[in-house]
C-alpha cells in the first residue's frame, strides 16, 4: 500500500501518460480537421467497452480494447453507409451513428451496472482519484515486486505503441494528412493510415477512460493539439508541443484539484482550456496580443510621421506650427519625436536636420501618390488627399522611384505644390 504522497504521484503519472497519448493522436485529428471525430469516437466506444466487460473482460484489459476499437469501427462504418446508401451528409451521419451508439452504451451500463464492475459515473467523468487503489504487482529486476496502478500500465502501453507507430510511419502520416490525393497517387497507403488513426483514437480514448471519462477525454484529444497549432509552424514541433501542453496541463490540473478539493478530470480540462486561451492570446503573428501590438505600433508610427509632415508643411508655408491645435495623443508623439532627436520642443516643435530629412520623404510620398492618382485614376482634385494621407506611410524608396519615373517630368502634385526631392 502507498502513503498518500505516493498515491498522488501515481494519479498524476497516470493522467500525464494518457494526456500524452491523447495529445499525440489529437495532433493528427486537428491538422486533418477531424477533431469532431475524436469527440465522436470517444463516445461511440462505450457500448463496445460495456459488452466486453459483460463478456468477462477486465477494465483496461485486451478484451475491452478490442471491444472499443470494434465499436469505433462499427460507428465509422455506419456513418459511411449512411452517407453512401442513405445520402446523409457526413456530419449528420456521424451525429446519428455516434450518439446512438453512445446512448446504447449508457443504457447498457445503467441496466447492468449492478452485475458488472463498471460504474456509470466513472465512465462519463472518470475517477482519477481512485486510480492508485487498483494495482497489479510488477516484478522488479531483483527480488520482490512493486504495486503499480493498472490504469497507468494501460496508458503507458498505449503511449508506447502509438509513439512507436508515429516515429516509424512519420512520412506516411504527414503526407496523407497534408495532401491525401497526392499521397494516394504516389502509392501511400492512405486508407490504411485513416483506419490506423481511427484505431489509435480508440486506443487513446479507452486508455483515458478511467482517468478522465468519455466526456472529458475530448479535451485531452483536441485542446492541447489545437493550442500547439496556434503557436508553431512545423508539424513535428507541433506534436511535441501538444504533448508537452497535455502533460503539463494534467499535472497542473491535478494539483489544482487537490488544492481546492474538486474533481481532478474536470480541473485538468479547465487548465487545458486556459492553456488554449493563453496560446490564442500570445500566439506569434496571429495571436490577439500580437495583432493589437501590430495595429497599435502602426498607429503610433503613422501619428509620428503625420506629426513630422505637419511640421514640414508648416515650414514650407511659413506658418508657425504652434497655432495648430494638438490632441493629447499628438502631444505624446511630439514628446517621443523630441526624445528621438527628430524635433526640438518649443514654438510648437521645430524639425532637426534629421527630422526634416524624414519629413521630406513622407511629404514626397504623399505628393507622388497624389500625382500618380491624378494621372491614372479619374478622381476629382479634392478626393486625392485622403488616399495619399493613408498610402504615404507605406511607400518604400523603390516604389517611390518607379512612381516618380512614371509621373516623370512633373515636379508638382495635382494641387500645384512642389514634390520635394528624394535627397
Amino acid at each position, binding site marked *: 500500500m502507498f502513503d498518500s504522497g505516493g498515491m498522488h504521484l501515481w494519479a498524476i503519472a497516470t493522467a500525464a501518460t494518457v494526456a500524452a497519448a491523447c495529445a499525440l493522436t489529437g495532433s493528427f485529428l486537428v491538422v486533418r480537421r477531424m477533431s469532431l471525430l475524436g469527440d465522436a469516437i470517444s463516445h461511440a466506444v462505450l457500448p463496445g467497452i460495456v459488452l466486453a466487460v459483460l463478456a468477462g473482460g477486465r477494465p483496461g484489459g485486451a478484451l475491452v480494447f478490442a471491444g472499443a476499437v470494434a465499436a469505433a469501427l462499427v460507428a465509422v462504418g455506419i456513418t459511411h453507409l449512411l452517407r453512401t446508401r442513405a445520402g446523409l451528409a457526413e456530419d449528420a451521419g456521424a451525429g446519428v451513428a455516434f450518439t446512438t451508439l453512445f446512448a446504447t452504451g449508457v443504457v447498457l451500463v445503467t441496466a447492468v451496472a449492478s452485475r458488472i464492475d463498471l460504474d456509470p459515473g466513472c465512465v462519463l467523468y472518470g475517477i482519477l482519484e481512485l486510480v492508485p487503489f487498483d494495482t497489479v504487482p510488477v516484478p522488479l529486476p531483483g527480488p520482490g515486486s512493486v504495486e503499480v496502478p493498472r490504469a497507468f500500465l494501460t496508458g503507458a502501453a498505449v503511449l508506447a505503441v502509438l509513439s512507436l507507430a508515429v516515429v*516509424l510511419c512519420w*512520412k506516411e502520416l504527414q503526407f496523407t494528412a*497534408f*495532401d491525401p*490525393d497526392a499521397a494516394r*497517387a*504516389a502509392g501511400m497507403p492512405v486508407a490504411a493510415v485513416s483506419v490506423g488513426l481511427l484505431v489509435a483514437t480508440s486506443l487513446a480514448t479507452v486508455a483515458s477512460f478511467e482517468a478522465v471519462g468519455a466526456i472529458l477525454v475530448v479535451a485531452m484529444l483536441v485542446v492541447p493539439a489545437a493550442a500547439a*497549432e496556434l503557436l508553431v*509552424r*512545423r508539424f513535428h514541433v507541433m506534436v511535441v508541443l501538444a504533448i508537452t501542453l497535455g502533460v503539463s496541463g494534467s499535472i497542473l490540473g491535478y494539483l489544482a484539484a487537490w488544492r481546492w478539493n474538486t474533481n481532478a478530470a474536470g480541473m485538468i480540462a479547465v487548465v487545458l482550456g486556459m492553456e488554449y486561451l493563453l496560446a490564442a492570446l500570445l500566439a506569434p503573428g496571429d495571436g490577439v496580443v500580437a495583432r493589437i501590438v501590430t495595429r497599435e505600433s502602426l498607429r503610433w508610427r503613422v501619428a509620428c510621421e503625420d506629426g513630422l509632415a505637419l511640421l514640414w508643411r508648416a515650414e514650407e508655408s511659413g506658418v508657425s506650427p504652434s497655432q495648430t491645435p494638438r490632441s493629447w495623443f499628438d502631444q505624446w508623439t511630439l514628446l517621443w519625436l523630441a526624445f528621438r532627436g527628430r524635433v526640438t520642443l518649443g514654438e510648437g516643435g521645430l524639425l532637426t536636420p534629421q527630422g526634416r530629412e524624414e519629413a521630406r520623404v513622407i511629404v514626397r510620398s504623399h505628393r507622388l501618390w497624389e500625382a500618380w492618382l491624378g494621372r491614372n485614376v479619374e478622381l476629382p482634385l479634392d478626393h486625392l488627399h485622403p488616399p495619399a494621407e493613408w498610402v504615404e506611410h507605406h511607400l518604400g524608396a523603390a516604389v517611390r522611384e518607379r512612381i516618380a519615373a512614371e509621373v516623370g517630368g512633373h515636379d508638382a502634385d495635382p494641387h500645384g505644390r512642389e514634390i520635394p526631392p528624394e535627397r
Partner: protein
Amino acid sequence: MTSRPLSTADSVSTPSPPALEYHDVTVAYGRRPVLWNIDLVVASPSLFGIIGPNGAGKSTLLKAALGLVPLSGGEVRIFGRPLAEVRGRVGYVPQRESVDWDFPVNVLDVVLMGTYARLGWFRRPRAPERLLAMECLERVGLADVATRQIGRLSGGQQQRVFLARALAQRADLYFLDEPMAGVDARSQEGIFRVLSDLRDEGKLVIIVHHDLRSAAEWCDNVALVDMRLVATGPAAAVLTPANLRRTYAGRLDVLDEIGRAVEEGGRTP
C-alpha cells in the same frame, strides 16, 4: 529513370508502348457517368493540354489515370502497364484548393514529400533528398523561401511549390490539374517554361488548363473534353472555331440527360 520497363533488346524489335493510353474509359460518380467512353493515346515526349468547360470531367480524366476514382469501364495503361507497376514514374500536382494551406509545414517539407514514395517504409529523407528538394525549388525559383510556412506564400508560389514536389518525384509522366489557377502572368510563364523543359528532357506532361490562348502557345497537342473526347491533336488543328463551338456552346445535353436517367434508374424523356 533508373529502370526502364523494357530492355534495350525489346525496344529494338518492338517500339516502346505509348506513355499514356485510355481505352474506352467511363467514370461515374455514384451511378452518374461524368466521362463517357474516352479513347486517348498520348506518346512521350509532349506537353499535352486537356481543355474543356467547367464540369467537363477534366480533373476526373486525370484522377482516372492516377487511380483516384474507380473506373466504371475501360482501362488506363501507363508505359504499357497498369498504374500499380509504374507508380514511381508518375508525378501528380493536384488542384491548389484541394489542400489546407494553413497546415503546419514549410516549403521544403512539402517538396521533400515528393521523395517519400521512393524512400519506402521507415526511411527518413536525409542529405541527398534535401539536396534534391533544394534543386527542385531552385528550378521553380523558390529557393529563397524554403523555410517559409506555406500559408504565407502567394497563389503562384504555392503552385510552384507543388510543381517542385512533383519534380522531386523524378517522374517520367506528370499530371498537373489546373497548375495556372490563381497564378499571375509572370509565374505562369515560369511554370510553362519548367514544363516545356521537362518535355525537352523526354517526359510527358499532361496539364488540365482553361486558357485557350496560352494552351495554343505552349502545348504541342491538346484534347478537347466535354464528358466525351471532342477532338485531339495539334493545338492549331484542334482549337478551331467549329470544335470550340461543339465543346463550349453546343454542349451535348443528351449526355447530361442520360446520365441523370442512369442515376435515377429512370428513363429519358
